[in-house]
């Protein structure tokens, strides 16, 4: 089944100058659960929502350690992400082997972007079905990059990818000016607030469905590990019990008065002089038929 005459081959442009296969790959990123990344002067953090295919299943892996100074969070096809993270780990090690230097983060991100671009131009290939948020540290401090299957990479103060990431983005855009001088704990709290925006109605962030990745000096909740983290603060992934203090630091969500329809909610918000509810803001986000919440291929 084709949506378009020009979408079966990524080497052919549509008359509108679009590469449909590449755009579909970008849709794959949106199928994955959300990931949020942000950075301050001293830290860079990743936060991600893990899905589970059911009560009996474990939660998916959303974050990968690349090296002591680089970590990634993914949204989209987990198997493609593993190919990319493997490549990034090889690059990191090659840099250590030849120059004894940690690979510069921007070069690492450029390297995967270049690889992704090849997949959008050569016959017989398909684009990667995964987007990445990459945090890294070098002489110029902490960095956050987004990688997309289109072969682009950009640096950000804060960014989110994955399902309903527009809601998180809206939160980040509203608050990002506070991030630069924020403490690690404040940064993570903002990140959790942003991530919370991507949740479905009846869900909430728990120690089971949330991953936190941190780069930078140990925070107040990490004093026990201060020696192993080192002065720079190597990349670490927090999961399970240890993230409870961060979840506890969150402020309760402002719940709008119970209303019966979206239109009524929007009207109520407009009447109160507040911006429209996030759900109404980003109607184009979801695939038709809603999100398959238990798609095991989509991390």
């Amino acid at each position, binding site marked *: 089944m084709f949506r378009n005459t020009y979408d079966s081959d990524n080497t052919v442009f549509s008359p509108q100058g679009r590469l449909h296969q590449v755009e579909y790959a970008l849709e794959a990123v949106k199928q994955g659960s959300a990931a949020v990344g942000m950075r301050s002067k001293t830290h860079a953090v990743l936060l991600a929502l893990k899905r589970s295919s059911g009560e009996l299943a474990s939660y998916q892996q959303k974050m990968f*350690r690349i090296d002591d100074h680089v970590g990634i969070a993914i949204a989209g096809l987990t198997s493609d992400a593993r190919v990319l993270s493997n490549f990034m*780990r090889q690059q990191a*090690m090659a840099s*250590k*082997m030849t120059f004894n230097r940690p690979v510069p983060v921007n070069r690492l991100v450029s390297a995967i972007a270049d690889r992704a671009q090849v997949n959008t131009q050569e016959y017989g290939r398909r684009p990667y079905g995964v987007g990445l948020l990459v945090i890294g540290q070098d002489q110029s401090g902490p960095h956050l990059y987004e990688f997309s299957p289109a072969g682009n990479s950009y640096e950000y103060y804060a960014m989110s990818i994955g399902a309903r990431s527009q809601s998180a983005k809206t939160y980040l855009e509203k608050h990002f000016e506070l991030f630069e001088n924020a403490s690690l704990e404040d940064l993570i709290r903002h990140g959790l607030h942003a991530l919370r925006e991507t949740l479905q109605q009846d869900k909430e962030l728990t120690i089971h469905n949330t991953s936190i990745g941190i780069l930078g000096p140990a925070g107040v909740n990490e004093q*026990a*590990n201060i*020696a*192993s983290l*080192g002065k720079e603060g190597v990349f670490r992934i927090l999961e399970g019990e240890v993230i409870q203090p961060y979840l506890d630091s969150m402020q309760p969500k402002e719940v709008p008065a119970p209303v019966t329809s979206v239109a009524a909610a929007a009207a109520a918000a407009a009447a109160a002089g507040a911006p429209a509810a996030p759900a109404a803001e980003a109607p184009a986000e979801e695939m038709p038929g809603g999100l398959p919440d238990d798609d095991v291929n989509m991390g």
Partner: protein
Amino acid sequence: MALAQPLYADQHRPIQHQFNPYAENGGTILAIAGKDFSVIAGDTRQTEGYSIQTRYAPKVFKLTDRAVLAVNGFQADCSTFVKKVKQRIEWYRHAHSKQMPLKAIARMIQGMLYGKRFFPYYTYNILGGIEEDGTGAVYSFDPVGSYEREACRAAGAASSLIQPFLDNQIYFKNQTPAPGAAPFEPGNLPMDTVLSIVIDSFTSATERHIEVGDGLEMFVVVAPGRDVAGVQSLGAEELPALTPEGERIFVLRRDLKKD
């Protein structure tokens, strides 16, 4: 020094210039296992011929929170080998999200050494640390990978001076228990005894071997929960551990004679 007259046969055959890809850079390493600790030590002198190239070239390296590797032989092969071992351990960590166990590292090292059986790394390796069952362990290797677990081993320039001493002091060779006393059991000495044996081994080797001296580095790997007051009181520096509350590694440094 007279110029040796080349043999007639040498003068009348094609001249061959061979390149010898190996050198011998002196120094000595040793390791001793205790019940719940392991000591891995090496001097820091690097030589070629009669020249001291540097007085500080470390030969003992931390691999994981519970494994320490000492290498000796041809320096270029040694540092390449250590780098490759560390890389393989990093891949293990990526794949399994845990640190590689000691006995797995030992088997991996045998594979890496034997992989270059026909152009060997000219390295003598001694791996020390704590096994998964919490016991102190020492593994020793020859340059092409044959290996075994032992209670102690010396390698390198002064190995022929130190090993017989260890055989006597650690394995109790040529000693007989006092009448009525319990039989000797190698690998059970207390840590302070082991450390004095290590220090004595190196000071003696420094006296008798020109390629040994300058500095001594002793890595002490300690099983989880074991009392560390002894090694701390000797002024040891603790290396940061990846996983707190597991094994701990301390480094003790001593000067050796520089002549």
